[in-house]
């Protein structure tokens, strides 16, 4: 496993206090908009693309997070399309899916693997 980890290009995204507990925030990394979620109730962090593929809106970081049968998910604020925070697949029956990124926390900083 270690050999895989070294392949990830970890970028500093933000301070942990920048992302509200049980909510999301958006960061700009290499001109890419990435949504970061601090799912405190589960003790987990997630990151996905910020773009909702349904109507091409930069909005997922402003969506509500939650679970559907234990699968962590985010709901786009525009039309409530929901996506798995783990796999990125759409949980409300659409063909499209979103990109997910690995996240790690070190010294109160949030790192994203791009």
């Amino acid at each position: 496993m270690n050999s895989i980890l070294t392949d990830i290009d970890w970028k500093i995204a933000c301070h942990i206090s920048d992302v509200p507990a049980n909510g999301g925030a958006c960061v700009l990394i290499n001109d890419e908009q990435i949504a970061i979620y601090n799912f405190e109730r589960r003790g987990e962090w997630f990151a996905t693309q910020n773009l909702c593929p349904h109507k091409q809106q930069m909005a997922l970081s402003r969506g509500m997070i939650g679970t559907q049968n234990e699968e962590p998910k985010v709901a786009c604020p525009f039309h409530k399309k929901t996506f798995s925070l783990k796999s990125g697949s759409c949980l409300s029956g659409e063909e499209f899916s979103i990109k997910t990124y690995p996240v790690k926390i070190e010294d109160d900083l949030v790192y994203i693997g791009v």
Partner: protein
Amino acid sequence: MKKSKIVVIGNGMVGYKFCEKAVNSAISEKLDIHVFGEEPRPAYDRVHLSAYFGEKTLEELTMAPLSWYNEHNINLHLGDPITVIDKEAKEITSLNGKKETYDYLVLATGSGAFVPPIEGVELNGIFVYRTIEDLDLMKEHAKKASRGVVIGGGLLGLEAAKALLDLGIKDAHVVEFAPRLMPRQIDGPGSKILEGKLKSLGITTHCSKNTARFSGGSSVTGLEFYDGQFLEADMVVISAGIKPRDELAKKIGLKTGTRGGIEVNEIMQTSSPDIFAIGECALYDSMIYGLVAPGYEMAEVALNSISKKITDDFVSKKIEFSGFDMSTKLKLIGVDVASFGNAFIEEPECQTIAYENKAKGIYKRINIDNHNKKLLGGILIGDAEQYNMLQQICVNEMPIPSDPENLILGARGGEEGGGGVMGLPDSALICSCEAVTKGDIVSQMTENGRTTLDEIKKSTKACTGCAGCTPLVKDLVNGVLKEQGVIVRNVICEHFDYTRQELLSMTKLRGLKTYDEVLESLGTGHGCETCQPAVSSILASLWNDNVLAKGRDVSQDSNDRFLANIQRGGTYSVVPRIPGGEITPEKLIVIGEVAKKYGLYTKITGGQRIDLFGAHVGDLPNIWEELINAGFESGHAYGKALRTVKSCVGTTWCRYGVQDAVSFAIEVENRYKGLRSPHKLKSAVSGCTRECAEAQSKDFGIIATETGWNLYLGGNGGSKPRHADLFATDLSSETIIKYIDRYLMFYIRTAEPLQRTATWIDKMEGGIEYLKSVVIDDVLGINEELENEMNSLVGKYKCEWKEVVETPELRKRFTHFVNAPEVKDPSIELVPMREQVKAKDWNEVAV
């Protein structure tokens, strides 16, 4: 194992459905499927083609993306029609020269537009309406056209007329050869009603008109009719019928009909045993079936025929095509049109019952057999709510009420009309697109333990085609649950096994103040987008604490989280409160200056205030700071909360006014501002019975009388308008406020999430009379409590935007990029419109 090779010619809806059924069947592993399509894109929903100009993107119209074909190992060749079929060698050749052998050939070539040989038909500006390409061509031309004419008043013709309107053409006309519109579906009186409806939408109808020639030099300028009349036009769409695409079949000598169409038998086989034809190119029993549902059934039958040849077994029950019930229901330009069974049969062969309401644009006709036992057919225009039931009664020959008019007028005087969905036989076809019967759905529930609409949709595919059967399936699911003794309890979601009312009482009892506390003590799991806003609304209704403080921000719906309405493109709109619609010139100037400074689009709302659109999330606190400094407060336009109290000028200026409506509206608005509730609340105060403030369309409306005020409750505008009920008359200002306090608190306590007062009252047992007994007669003995609760909420009111502006911690959350707060979202695009800006159309934003 050697696979059987199937070549499908045509990638339209039916060709696609054949592939979908094949890859989901038991023989999928035994098939090697190759598809050739003439169009440059994968199959799309042609039924809703006009949506391409409006509500839907191409992506949404696409049946399945290219990746789907890949995943299922289907070789898809687009933009490459087949030109040669060698029946003996069982080989096809495409336009691009690709050769492919086959074991079985499926012709799903569909149909093209029938273009009558009218002189001048080749002129510029004359189009057919069939493919996305046709639509793109129309789009270009429409930019410079002001009058558009559709030739053909059938189903497709009227769709095309809608497309013209969507393209911005103000003056649209439909020309029909027959004496009425939709001659195959509806009768003369029905057509008249439909013509009236269309007229109000900007579409003029000309029936009994036969076009002799198109006039014009290079571009069309008009239509000359055989009766000598002339209609100017700078754009024409021909939708005079369809022509089966049978040219390939003819070339290789397959049997075709005299008026076109590839002849098939009941198993979809053409005159050559290994070649099948399905959809609009197929001619069964001398008939072309120009609807998608029979096409889908043909696809399944053809698959079974092939399966039988390969494995000597079928993959499903539909092994023969035996014609199709061509009943249709559709929404044409917002107007319901339906016909079923034998719509045209007339006396003396039957008894006809018709109801016509010109004022409302409704026409209903049913044909009953002479023994008063069977429903033979009918037509519904303007209101087709009863279509599903009527169509079922008709095809299943179910018993009808002794007063058959109850079928279309509803039961009057006690007796129920019709047996309802549970009275249908198991064989009743509920979803005609996917051929799902009532028995299929019931057995999914009783044998496979499915209990919800979503599960039924997934397991049977019902409702996934045109979705017209959804209400029927929903009733069926609820009916079966009821029979099983399951009480349908409207619990919030998988995380809270309580109704909203239960959750509110317990939250109050335990004094819970945040979503996390509520989840921890009353729920399970980690929440979702359904329970978070519901709980947040309950918390706000109970305690009226700032919705963003103490970590409550993340469990608010987006609009409440940013205290502004999210709009297309991701910007927000700002609505300052203007109580009663009264505003000073100084304040108007401030709004104007703020709008100018931040580049905002301004518009007067329906609620007598001003909406400022296009604000970046990062600008919101600054915008509000300026507004608050000028004396404005939040208008809560983003919240499920009190919106506005409209008013007319009343006695202050109006020569008819009998009370001071503006002052009272301001008093009422200031009392209830910031009040959060299960859904939004609107109100209005009119100064006399002329009702200029439209109070009867509000959740609570107040109308002045000579001696006081009349109170109206439960009104609604929107998609299902409802007039408010008169609740009490000639009340003093003090009494009416008391009644409203009790009414609103009772609503807040007992309504379901996102239920407006209108629905709440409609669903209340005992209705408005019961509500009177609670609010006026205090039968529950809770009025003092309700008033105290309201007084406490009113006392705790603070402008939440003021708190945000003054609290750095809260203010910080209003940024797009947390790692670059000064950068605005670069994906936001505003484009000019008249002298202002608007969000770029999201159907045009590049992917």
